[in-house]
Structure formats: structure tokens, C-alpha cells
């Protein structure tokens, strides 16, 4: 019975990992798009002496989408920097406790507050189909505003996955790695 519950939890964590891995890989390709976008703007400006506001806005927004929606993926890969003076050499148990407490006291409240404060903004923006305030900008500011609550969902889910794994590590006294981790970056 208990074992079944553990298995279920592990499946939930694996499912979350898969979502963020998929999103992370997708937004990573936007990096290439962004590099080319800025480069084209530079060439147009210095060689042909032309430029459009929307093109500049496009790479700024792409950049925002990358670091906001890539946040969950970065967490999955443990890429969010930690002060690891103590953490690096600590036991799996210590790490699990820190991660659970951190999720509970820091991550979840922060993400919850941000979600509840950003969702109404995005909703209002959608209803009025708000445009960029720049003349000649992208006529869809609501997309950028919607990125914030979406970031909260993806990032919050990934912390949930982290918490489940840490919890299972504590209970079963064994490390519970993501089933993705083993062949993650090589296979794809």
C-alpha cells in the first residue's frame, strides 16, 4: 500500500520532469533564433541603415521567454546556483532536508504570491488585447504578461518534483534520481 503510494509519487515527479525537459529543450532553440535575430538587426542597422521597433522588441521578448520558461528546466538540471560551502559535501539526507524546507518556506510561498499577483494582470491584458507601449512595437503585450504566471506554474511544478524526490529520499534512505537523469542529455 505504502509502496504503491511511493510509486505513484515517483510517477508524478517523473511526469513533471518530462514536461520541463520538453519545455527547456524547446526554449533552448529560441536561443539560436535570438542570436540570429539580434545579428540581423545589427546588419540591417549598420549595413542598410534601416530598423524596425518590433524586430528589436522581438529579441528582447524572446530573451525573456527563454529565461522565464527555461527556469523549471534549469532547476531540473540543478542549474540554479546554490551557495555550496556546506551543501556540496553534505549527506543526501542533509540535502533532502534543505530542499524540503526550502520548497516549503521559500519556493512555494514566493511562487504562490507571484502567481496570484501576476495572473490578474495577464488576464486583464488578454481581455483588452493590450499592445506594446512602443510605437511600432509588437501588438501583443499580453503574451509577455502571460509568461509570468506560466513561469510560476512550470517553476512551481519542478519544485514539487524536487520535494517529492527529497521526501522519498528521506523515507527510503536512498537517493531517488529522476528516471530521466541517466540518459538525459545524451539521448536527445
Amino acid at each position, binding site marked *: 500500500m505504502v509502496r504503491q503510494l511511493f510509486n505513484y509519487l515517483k510517477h508524478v515527479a517523473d511526469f513533471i520532469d518530462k514536461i520541463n525537459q520538453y519545455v527547456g529543450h524547446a526554449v533552448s532553440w529560441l536561443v539560436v533564433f535570438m542570436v540570429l535575430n539580434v545579428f540581423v538587426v545589427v546588419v540591417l542597422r549598420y549595413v542598410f541603415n534601416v530598423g524596425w521597433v518590433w524586430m528589436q522588441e522581438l529579441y528582447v521578448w524572446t530573451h525573456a521567454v527563454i529565461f522565464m520558461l527555461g527556469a523549471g528546466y534549469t532547476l531540473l538540471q540543478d542549474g540554479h546556483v546554490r551557495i555550496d560551502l556546506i551543501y556540496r559535501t553534505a549527506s543526501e539526507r542533509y540535502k533532502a532536508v*534543505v530542499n524540503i524546507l526550502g520548497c516549503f518556506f521559500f519556493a512555494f510561498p*514566493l511562487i504562490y504570491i507571484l502567481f496570484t499577483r501576476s495572473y490578474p494582470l495577464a488576464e486583464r491584458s488578454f481581455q483588452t488585447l493590450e499592445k506594446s507601449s512602443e510605437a511600432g512595437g509588437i501588438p501583443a503585450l499580453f503574451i509577455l504578461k502571460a509568461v509570468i504566471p506560466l513561469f510560476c506554474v512550470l517553476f512551481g511544478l519542478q519544485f514539487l518534483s524536487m520535494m517529492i524526490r527529497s521526501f522519498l529520499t528521506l523515507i527510503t534512505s536512498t537517493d531517488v534520481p529522476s528516471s530521466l537523469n541517466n540518459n538525459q542529455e545524451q539521448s536527445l
Partner: protein
Amino acid sequence: MTEEYLALIMFLVTIVALLLGFPVALTLGGSALLFAFIGEYLDLFNLGLLNVYPLRILGVMKTETLVAVPLFIFMGVMLDRSNLAGDLLDAMGRMFGKLRGGLGVSVLLVGALLAASTGIVGATVVTMGLMSYPVMLRAGYDPKLAAGLICSSGTLGQIIPPSIVLILLADILQGANEQASEIKGDLVPEPITAIDLFAGAFLPGLFLVGLYLCWLVFQAVINPTSCPSLKTDEAQGQVKLSEILRVIFPPLILIVAVLGSILSGIATATESAAVGAVGATFLAMNAGKFNLSILQDVSRETTKISSMVFIILIGASLFSLVFRGLGGDEVVEEFLQNLPGGAFSAMLLVMLVIFFLGFFLDFIEIIFVVVPIVAPTLIALGYSPLWLGVMIGVNLQTSFLTPPFGFALFYLRGVAPAEVQTSMIYKGVIPFIFLQLFALAVFWMFPEIVTWLPGELFKK
């Protein structure tokens, strides 16, 4: 208890909480949020202030100058993954290797130029350590000298242009500068851009490289066995000078083009960074090292590092919001302005605090958390924002080198061969710490070293 005390307690609690090891971004934001709730409960804070938080984030998302960060990361990772950086070190080692200390010179120059532009001390020192430490040891270098060279040039790479640390610092100093003129009651000040800071850090960076070089030459003269020349079989490439030049020139031209376009004032940091990113990709193609899987690898790495950086900025902006809401900035301002000894002791105290915090926090956290608190007051006291930025950078770099806590030392220890004792690494960096302190004193006495070039280039 008054609200000001709560702000200071929040600062201290956050530092302690950071040491536990939970991701920095969430610890900063989360602990600030807890204190916002405590403040609300004690009637010292108005939770309504948090309504502007999403707007702050939206502001970060719309800041054009910050786009330079992922572009420079892309360039650095591309040079690294396509092995161009390693080949460059190799070629320079062969070119200078016949001289005593020549390999050291190559490590120093490559490290300072190409030190992976991530803004994370750990990543830079690890890359440099893996790339060059074994080579230097095999060549018979004194492990102490080699360790000192790697740590100092790896950390120096963080504060000489093009570096993402300077881009982030410029963004924060710009805000601080505006607040400072509010304090002084001045009109709107001249904006500070990443380009100004690049220009400001250029001569100090050269000065430090020069100091390291002098030390190396001095060692080569008084203690020739500490940095011997390469044996002929190691320097097998000597026949083909053209071959060596073929490896050295492309990356060098890239760096010169990127720096040149920035310093000449033609292009913004973001524009130069895009040219750098595309240029690095072309170099990789040219060397036959480019394929789709490298591009994928570089893109994913860029996503992760830039997400890491900006999510910290988002966490830290909540920290600043709550710290201000609790009146913490006024306490700091009042305290710094009323110190006996005036502006000088305020600056000295801030430098000491930052040096100490550098034992626990990395560049990015200090820039986002500490600089916004102290910089407005120091600028209002009459210090130039550019000079302040460079002083903070060099100071932190020194902090990262200082035993027993310096970050750079930990990371080099992590990748150094087992036969190198930790005490050797500690002893090796000591001369470099003195060089750093000397440089700090010189920059303090002659601020023109920082402010002259930007003034000359951009007529401020």
C-alpha cells in the same frame, strides 16, 4: 522593535539561510517574503507593496541591455565547446613555451581573454584549472605558482570586458545613480551603460594583467626552476609557425572586433555580443568543429546559465523591494553618511563588508543584493559610479582569492590533481593577493585610471 531593525535582521537571516544551500534565487526572494509577512503582522510593512512585484519582473523582461548577457554566454560556451579556447592555449603555449615562464604567460593571457564569460567564479576557475593546470604541472611548473596564476587570471576574466558581470553591474549602478541624484536633489544624471563600464574596466584590467606578468617574469629570473621552458619534444610544433598563427589569429580577431566595436562607441553591448556570438559560431565552422549537436549543447547551456542569472535577479528584486519597504535603505544611508571620517570611511567600510561577503556569496548575488543598498549613498557622497563599479569588481576578485574561504581556491582544489596539496594552492595565491591589494590602492589614489578612458571615448 522598529522597522529598521527588522530590515537588518532580514539581511542577516538571509545570509545565514543562503549558506544552507537552497538555490540562491528562491532563498533571497522567499526569505524576503517571510519578513514581509512578519512586517505586516507587526504593522511595519504594507503587503500592498507586493503588487508592484510583477511589474518589476516585467521591467526586467523588457530591458534591452540585458540581452547582451545570453549572447556573451553563447559566445563563451561556443568557444569552449568547440575546443577553440583549448586550441588557443595550446598554440600560445607552443609559441611562448621556449621562453622561461612562457607557458605561464599563455595561461594568463588566454585566461584573461577567454575566461568563460558566465559570471560564475566556479565555472571559470574550473574550466581554466582543467584546461591548464595539468599542462603546467607536466611542464615542471611549481604547483604553487601555477595555482596562483590560474586562480587570479580566471577571476580577472570576470571583471575585464567583455564580461557579463560588468553588464549586470552597469544595470544596477544606473539605478543607483538615479537614486543618488534624488538624494542630492540634482537633475537627472547621465545614464551609465555597460559600454561605459567596459571602458572604465579596460585600463585597470590591463594594469592587473601587467602586474601578474611582472610577477611571473620576476619568478622566472630569481627562481628559474619554478617556471621552466618547455622541453623540445613538448614544443614539437615549433617548425610550423604558420600553423600556430592560424589557430591564434581567428579568436584574437574576434575578441578585438567585439571589444573594438564596443570601445569605439559604434555598437551597443548587445550588438557587439551578437556579432561575437555569430563570429564564434563561424570560427567553429571554420575549424570544422561545428555540428548540430554542438549547437544544441551550446543553446541549452546558454538557456540554463541565463535563466540562473535572471531568476536570481528576480529573487533579489523582491529582496530589495521588501528591504526598502522596511526602511532598510534609509538606515544604511544615514549610517554611511554619518560615519566619522566622511566619505572615505564610508567607502572603506563598504569595501571591507563586500570583501567579507565575498567569502560566502558570488559576484551575481553581491551585485544584485548589496550594491543596490550601498551604491546610491556612496555615489551621493561624491564617488564616481564607474570607479565604484571597478573597485567593487577588483575587491571581490581579491576576496575570491583569499584563503581559507576564497571561492576560486575551493574550485581549483576540486579539479587539481590529488598530489597538489591544498596548502600549496593557498601559498600560491598569496603573492597575487598582495598584487591585488596594491592595485586597489593605486586605483583608489588615481581614480583617473578608471574614469579617463570612458571620458575620453564618450566625452562625458
